[in-house]
C-alpha cells in the first residue's frame, strides 16, 4: 500500500483529502504544517505528499525546498494543493520541485487524474 502524507492546516481539507486518497487505496497520514511534515518524513518517507501553500510555522514552499535538499527527499511525488492559483505561484512551486499542482477547490476526479499523471493512481 502506497503511503501519502497530507500537509494542510485545514482540518476540513485534510478530512476531504483523506477520504479521496483512502478510496484510492493510500495509507494516509497527516501534518498541520511544513515543520510537522518534515518531522514525519524524517521518520518515514511517504510515496506521495499532498501539500498546501499557506500554513503556520512553515509554508508549503519552504517545506518542499527543504525536503528536496534532504537526502532521499527527491523520492516522494509532491502535489501542491492550494488556493494560490496564479501563474507566478504555480511556476515557483514547479521550480521548487513540485510534480503537480491542484488549484482548490478540487473534486475526486480532478485529484485522481492528477495522481495518474504523476504515476500514483
Amino acid at each position, binding site marked *: 500500500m502506497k503511503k501519502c502524507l497530507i500537509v494542510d492546516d485545514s482540518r476540513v481539507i485534510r478530512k476531504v483529502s483523506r477520504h479521496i486518497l483512502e478510496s484510492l487505496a493510500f495509507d494516509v497520514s497527516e501534518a498541520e504544517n511544513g515543520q510537522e511534515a518534515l518531522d514525519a518524513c524524517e521518520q518515514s518517507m511517504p510515496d506521495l505528499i499532498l501539500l498546501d501553500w499557506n500554513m503556520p510555522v512553515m509554508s508549503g514552499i519552504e517545506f518542499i525546498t527543504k525536503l528536496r535538499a534532504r537526502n532521499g527527499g527527491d523520492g516522494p511525488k509532491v502535489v501542491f494543493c492550494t488556493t494560490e492559483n496564479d*501563474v507566478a505561484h*504555480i511556476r515557483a512551486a*514547479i521550480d521548487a520541485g*513540485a510534480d*503537480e*499542482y491542484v488549484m482548490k477547490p478540487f473534486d475526486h476526479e*480532478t485529484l485522481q487524474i492528477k495522481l*495518474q499523471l504523476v504515476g500514483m493512481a
Partner: protein
Amino acid sequence: MTNLSEQIIADLLLEYTGQELTDSRRWRIGSALSGLFRERGLDNVEQLVVLLSEQRDNVLAKETVDALLNNETYFFRDKPMFDQLENDVLPRIAKQNEKQKRISIWSAGCSTGQEALTLAMMFADQPMRWKGWTIDILATDVSNKAIKAARNARYTQFEIQRGLGVGQMLQHFEETSQGWQPDRAIRDMITFQQHNILEPMVRATRFDLVLCRNVLLYFCADTRRRAFDRLVEAMAPDGWLMLGAGETSVGHTDAFIPARKLPGLYRPFEAAEATEEQEGTNLAAAR
C-alpha cells in the same frame, strides 16, 4: 401533461440532433433546462412547451436543444487512448502521408474544444518530429453553444486542471482575466464549426483520423448506422476511427472493423482488408 410535454421536448431533441432521450434519461430534463427556465422566467416544462408552440422562429427551440445536450469533456480524457494515438496510430499515418506532409483530423462531437486542443498539444509537444507538417484539425459539434465556447477558448480553473498536467498548462496556456487561454500556435491548428454528424461532411480532403467519442451512444440503432456511414464517407480509405470507451462498431455497421491490438480504434473495411492481406489475419473472425 408532464409526460406529453417531456415527449415533445424529447421529439425536439431527436429532430434537431438525432439523439434519443430514452425514458430512463427523462429525469434529466428538469435539471438540464433549469438555466433556460431562469433566463426565460419559466417555472416548468409545460410552460416551455407552450412558449415553443408560440414562437415563429426557432431560437428558443435551439436554446432548448443546446441545454439538453451533454457537453461533458476534459483534456486527455481516457489518457491511454491518446497514448495509443501517439505511439501507434500517428506514426503509421505519418508514414502514409510522408510525401504531402499533411494530417487531417476530425474531432466529431468536440463539445467545448478540450479534445481538439489535446490533439493539438500532442503535435506541439514534439516540434522537431512534426516540423514541416501541416496539422489540420476540424472540430465540430451539433451544439451552437458548445462551439461558441470552444471558439472563445477561455477555460475556468476547474476546466483547465481537469486532465491537464501542470507542465502542459504552463507551456500552452496563458492566464487571462476571462480564464485560461490556449496560445495561438495551438489554436491555429484547429477550426471549430457547428455541424450535425448525421449530415454529410462537405470537404475537399478526407480525414486520416476521426475521433467520435461518447456521441453515438445517444443514437438509436438506425441513426447510429447512419452516423457510421457519414463517418466512413468523410474518412480516407486507410484512415482511423477512435470511439469512446464502451462504444464499438461491432454489431452496428459493416463499414468499420476493430483495429488489431488497438482497443477503441477502428478502420474502414477496405483498410482492414488490405491489412489482412499484408498480415495474414482473419478478418471474418475480427467481425
